[in-house]
């Protein structure tokens, strides 16, 4: 792809803690950020295991902005944005505010605030505003001095990848010189209850691609990725080489059993990146741990890659399913892994399902610098999205 936008820097707040360092450590050690929590003690959820952002981290963020103490979606996203800004090189200082844009990716924004409003409990003005994802985007842009284009993308679990696609397009079209793509979602009673009614949660915690997997685990957090042109950030090593999306046109909550919708999105991404399947070195899967998704996904990979499915893994056992933040955080996993020369494993995978391709990585593979990676996600409503990441110079 001509003038592929580069990934200049990242920022994150996840179940593993604040920043990229705990994320990197967990990738190397293949550990999981999922744990049993008592945030919803007294509620009858199918599981209390999730990728909760540690309370001590939330408290730290609240202390820096007391006016937003009950607005965690904002706090998490702002922290990630701040980190990405600080991690950028000097080039960013030369970009005026009007040329800096924001794309927010979220499925439910601050739905916890909506719960309180409906229940007649107190709610700050900011939190109430952030019930609306569009206003959350506006407020984040204002807080970070981003006066260029601002948009909010919300397409279920593929929001993050579609937000990255939109940000990349803005860079290519020259309507912004620096675009912060930030994804955020919370583990709330609302979403836990929702997946409980669908009986989709694994009570013990998700085990992607495992023979005895029974469901997913939710996760929360925020991830921010800063995009710009290669010429502005010459030291950036990874770019967004191509993208694609599709709809299964099959069922609202179950993916097309044959994986054809996801395969279509992957083919579109490879085509837009002018990349043949054979040169993909690693795939970061959607891999939620539900019986249906993981089987479908393996079929999709096999239909695209034939006999030679590249090594692939799921990060849902690492962070939980972070919904609107997933596409951004899981792309970040690819970025960090590539920088450290390893292919991520699949935390919590114990025994591979024989129906899943043997190319799945349970453990990380060190000493590999992937040249091209594929990131995929699938979501409610039959949506699918894929992103191709490539090393500079390829």
């Amino acid at each position, binding site marked *: 792809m001509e003038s592929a936008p580069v990934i200049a820097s990242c920022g994150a707040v996840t179940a593993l803690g604040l920043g990229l360092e705990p994320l990197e450590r967990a990738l190397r050690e293949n550990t999981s950020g999922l744990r049993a929590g008592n945030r919803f003690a007294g509620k009858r959820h199918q599981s209390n295991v999730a990728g909760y952002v540690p309370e001590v981290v939330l408290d730290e963020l609240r202390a820096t902005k007391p006016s937003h103490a009950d607005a965690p979606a904002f706090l998490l996203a702002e922290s990630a944005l701040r980190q990405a800004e600080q991690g950028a090189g000097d080039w960013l200082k030369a970009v005026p505010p009007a040329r800096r844009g924001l794309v927010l990716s979220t499925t439910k924004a601050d739905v916890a605030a909506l719960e309180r409003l409906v229940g007649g409990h107190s709610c700050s003005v900011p939190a109430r505003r952030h019930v609306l994802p569009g206003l959350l985007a506006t407020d984040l842009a204002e807080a970070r001095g981003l006066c260029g284009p601002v948009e909010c993308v919300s397409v279920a679990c593929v929001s993050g990848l579609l937000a990255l696609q939109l940000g990349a397009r803005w860079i290519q079209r020259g309507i912004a010189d620096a675009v912060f793509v930030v994804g955020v979602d919370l583990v709330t009673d609302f979403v836990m209850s929702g997946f409980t*009614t*669908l*009986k989709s949660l694994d009570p013990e915690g998700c085990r992607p691609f495992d023979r005895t997997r029974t469901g997913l685990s939710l996760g929360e957090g925020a991830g921010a990725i800063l995009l710009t042109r290669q010429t502005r950030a010459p030291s950036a090593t990874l770019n967004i080489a191509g993208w694609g999306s599709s709809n299964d046109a099959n*069922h*609202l*909550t*179950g993916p097309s059993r044959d994986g054809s919708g996801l395969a279509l999105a992957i083919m579109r991404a490879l085509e837009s990146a002018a990349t043949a399947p054979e040169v993909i070195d690693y795939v970061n899967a959607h891999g939620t741990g539900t019986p249906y998704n993981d089987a479908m996904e393996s079929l999709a990979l096999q239909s695209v890659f034939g006999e030679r499915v590249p090594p692939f893994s799921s990060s849902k056992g690492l962070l939980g399913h972070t919904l609107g933040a997933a596409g951004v955080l899981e792309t970040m996993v690819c970025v960090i892994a590539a920088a450290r020369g390893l292919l991520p494993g699949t935390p919590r995978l114990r025994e591979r399902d024989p129906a899943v391709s043997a190319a799945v990585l349970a453990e990380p593979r060190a000493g590999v610098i992937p040249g091209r990676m594929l990131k995929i996600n699938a979501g409610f409503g039959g949506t699918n999205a894929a992103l191709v990441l490539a090393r500079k110079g390829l």
Partner: protein
Amino acid sequence: MESLIQELKTKIIEALHLDTVKPSDFKEEEPLFGTGLGLDSIDALELVVMLERDYGIVIQEREVAEKAFASVRALGEFVLNQRKPCSDGTQS
């Protein structure tokens, strides 16, 4: 049993928003799923919710649900076997 079956037909229609279906359209022995009614996995979950709410029956496993929803008659038999008394001591 017959009045229970009629009651279940009405509840199924309500719970699943089957606008164009009348109780008399239900064939009691016919499978509820995988037929012309076009019911899907979300409908199965709605029926699970309905059973819990209206009959106090909790289904945890998919296999139990599949057997119970095999037909309207199968559902009737399942409910009769499982039904718990209401808190005021009467049968629901």
